[in-house]
């Protein structure tokens, strides 16, 4: 993965682009509108800084593009690569539908198998497995696009997602502190 500082630079560039677009298009924004714009620009900027190399970033971008009011912003931040990125995100959505039907079939088979085991040892390990399963489900709901990933890719994506989120939070915090300092002068 790229060194964190270049990721932060990429993110900052795209985020500021998005912010400028928002403030130029609407002069009078309510607090909530502005906050949503800031958050959305930040999320999309971070996702596009990963250049569609990760599934979570593609899922985030495709979710953001679904809303018509966000489309202009998303396209501006994505820039010239927007067409190819959108195509990549679209293919992800189609892939999800195929995987879901396979999963339903697999689940129905495994439920039948689980009822047979009854010994103590197997109980303990099956409880542990169920915990892991439950926690994995929660993690899938937190990582964008997580619903259609295998366990392995989910963990890989989580690693990348956490690193990106951390970089995003760092940059946002620095900007907030700097703006506060500037406003005081």
């Amino acid at each position, binding site marked *: 993965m790229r060194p964190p500082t270049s990721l932060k630079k990429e993110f900052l560039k795209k985020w500021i682009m998005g912010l400028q677009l928002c403030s130029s298009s609407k002069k009078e924004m309510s607090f909530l509108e502005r906050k949503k714009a800031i958050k959305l620009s930040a999320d999309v900027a971070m996702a596009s800084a990963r250049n569609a190399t990760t599934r979570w970033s593609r899922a985030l971008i495709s979710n953001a593009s679904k809303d018509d009011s966000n489309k202009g912003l998303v396209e501006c931040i994505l820039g010239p690569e927007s067409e190819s990125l959108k195509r990549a995100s679209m293919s992800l959505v189609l892939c999800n539908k195929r995987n879901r039907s396979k999963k339903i079939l697999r689940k129905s088979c495994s439920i039948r198998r689980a009822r047979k085991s009854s010994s103590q040892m197997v109980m303990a390990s099956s409880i542990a497995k169920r915990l892991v399963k439950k926690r994995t489900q929660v993690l899938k709901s937190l990582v964008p696009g997580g619903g259609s990933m295998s366990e392995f890719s989910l963990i890989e994506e989580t690693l990348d997602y956490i690193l990106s989120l*951390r970089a995003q939070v760092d940059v946002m915090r620095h900007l907030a502190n700097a703006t506060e300092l500037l406003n005081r002068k």
Partner: protein
Amino acid sequence: MSSRRSRSRQPGVSRISDDQIADLVSKLQQLIPEIRNRRSDKVSASKVLQETCNYIRNLHREVDDLSDRLSALLASTDTDSDQAAIIRSLLM
């Protein structure tokens, strides 16, 4: 590693070994400050997953709080090019 222990159920995809998954989980362990600071090697997978989810939720909340803060701060000062240039030079 017997084939029965393999977790991958997709035909045609190379079997992901338990070692690879354990490797990823340990990497995840390194990232999460809660677990890293506790200095114990034996952390169960479900604990790692739980702390990961909590960590991600915290990060989401921080992004939300920072967006709130920035929204209030930027209300008075528009992000015109001058300010953006100053901030960019401060951060790089």
